[in-house]
């Protein structure tokens, strides 16, 4: 029987124009012979799967325990909503200031999406980095996907500005309404 790699090559190229099978497969068409060989080899390969081993076991590097309580998933939903809505993105700043004020962090299950937002929008970094908690910081240190966020200058916190409701232009009613809704939604945090 051919090796798995040879069988895959044959399946990729097709049997059109291939010679008729011989030997134990002589009574089959080239297609039938190939399909049966794949079925056999595939089962043998799966049944005899040999798991590769890592060269050395990775050192355990557990994240430090959290010091802040987690905010609700609903609060994270508001952040996602603001990020998805282009005209409302400036409210991400208010979201961050609010959470920092409440001394809350995002839940672990929401960290990939929040770190994704941080990675995408550099201007909101000062408002979102403080709410990722110990686990978020650990992920940044240990995951290549967040290497950009390790720059020390990103972590130097300036004094947080005030919530910016007054800065929203009065004629931007949509944004004012949205901010009001968000703040009502966050009031339970």
């Amino acid at each position, binding site marked *: 029987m051919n090796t*798995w790699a040879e*069988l*895959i090559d*044959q*399946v*990729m*190229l*097709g*049997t*059109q124009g291939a010679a008729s099978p011989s030997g134990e497969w002589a009574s089959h*068409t*080239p*297609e*039938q012979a*190939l*399909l*049966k060989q*794949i*079925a*056999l*080899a*595939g*089962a043998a*390969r*799966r*049944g005899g*799967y040999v*798991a*590769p*081993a*890592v060269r*050395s*076991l*990775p050192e*355990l*590097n*557990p*994240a430090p325990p959290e010091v802040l309580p987690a905010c*609700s*998933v*609903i609060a*994270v*939903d508001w952040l996602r909503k603001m990020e998805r809505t282009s005209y409302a993105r400036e409210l991400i700043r208010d979201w961050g200031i609010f959470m920092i004020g409440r001394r809350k962090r995002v*839940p*672990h*299950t*929401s*960290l*990939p*999406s929040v*770190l994704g937002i941080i990675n995408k929008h550099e201007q909101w970094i000062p408002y979102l980095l403080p709410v990722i908690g110990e*686990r*978020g910081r*650990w*992920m940044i240190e*240990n*995951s290549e*996907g967040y290497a950009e966020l390790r720059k020390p200058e990103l972590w130097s916190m300036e004094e947080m500005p005030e919530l910016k409701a007054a800065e929203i232009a009065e004629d931007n009613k949509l944004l004012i309404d949205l901010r009001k809704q968000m703040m009502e*939604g966050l009031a*339970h945090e």
Partner: protein
Amino acid sequence: MPTWNETFVQTLVTDSGTMRDGEKLARSGAYSGTGCDARSAWGLAKGSGKSPYQVSIDLNDAATKCSCPSRKFPCKHAVGLMLLLARDNVPTGATPPTWTSTWLDGRERKRESTPAPTKAPDAAAQAKREAARLAKVTDGVGELRLFLEDLVRQGLSHPAVKSYGFWDRIAARMVDSQMQPIGRRLRALGGAPFQKKANWAGLVADEVGRLYALTEAYQRLDTLPELLAYDVRAALGFNLKQEDVLALGTSVADRWQVLGVQIEQVEQLQERRMWLYGEQTGQYALILDFAHRSRPFDAVYPPAHWFSGEIVYYPSAYPQRAVVKSIDSGYTPIPYSSLNLSGTVEDILNGYADALAVNPFVQYVPAGLQDGWVTRSDLIDNVGKQLPLAHGAQPQWLNAVMGGSRLPIFGEWDGSAFLVAGLFTAEGWLPLGDA
């Protein structure tokens, strides 16, 4: 009776939108007249209508009833009340309102009632239906063989193979031939070339080989061992009725741990694979059920809980799928310290090889690691052996939840990839997925 905490409520809700809407209602003081006793909880939820919605929960099995028009089960009003219950914000000791007790009594009567005598089946009509189905499946198997032979004649490098439509067409033909499981498997192949897997051709070829072997087995069904013939028929879509399973299958009583759940959406249908583990027998069981996407599953089995009861395995060379015959206890959370999943990747692979030896058509086996560890693409055991994670495993999410520690992790191994079906953290069981 289940333990009502937030983790338990999360296990009952299949879509995150309903969970969040329920949370909003629970927080906003939308409920009035709430109460609970040993059997039920109830409340009136303020909605968009003139009158508030009447919400009831059967505490024994977490079934819910709401007078709102939503087609989701549980609806957001029921979820909100469940969350209030989980947070001890529902007063106890009151008498349930009529709408709750009437509903509960109806459920009780339904449970206790003996089925009405049904008309004896018309044997001739039944035989005719079965013959027609058999003819359809036989034609479908023939068509599938032709398709697979044409496929390897033209080769997987043909551009048409990389289009969803190519696979969807043959999948639809299989559904027409009443071979729904084959249709699903073919449709799934449509995505394989797009999952950025270097070995997509190997994955497609392997599945093509499996399907061809199945058609071969069908053509020799009469010569196969009886139990293996059941497996072939099941893989093609011949489902045994529950009463036939109860009559033909092997019954096992145990304390069953609910270890993991996979829910897959296939067009208008949801498929739920719920994995149980018998503490005394050491046997796994798969409870497979289906529901329309807007309907609830008939039964609730909260993950990370155990119940005492009896299950009956479908006849099979490698018994795996089962139905729950009776539940003799309530649901009790599995203490984190008493979880006992497999020790190593070798155990998982040996289990799969054993399954394959007796049922070459087995698609996946349950697989758990007590001390699992994940990298970007692999699951690693405590001696450093690796299994590749399935497409969509969300390694960043796993990393965020595991936080560099080893945790019990449960899933399915299909011979080429590990699909996560649940993660046990100190805070509770978590299904895979960003929240």
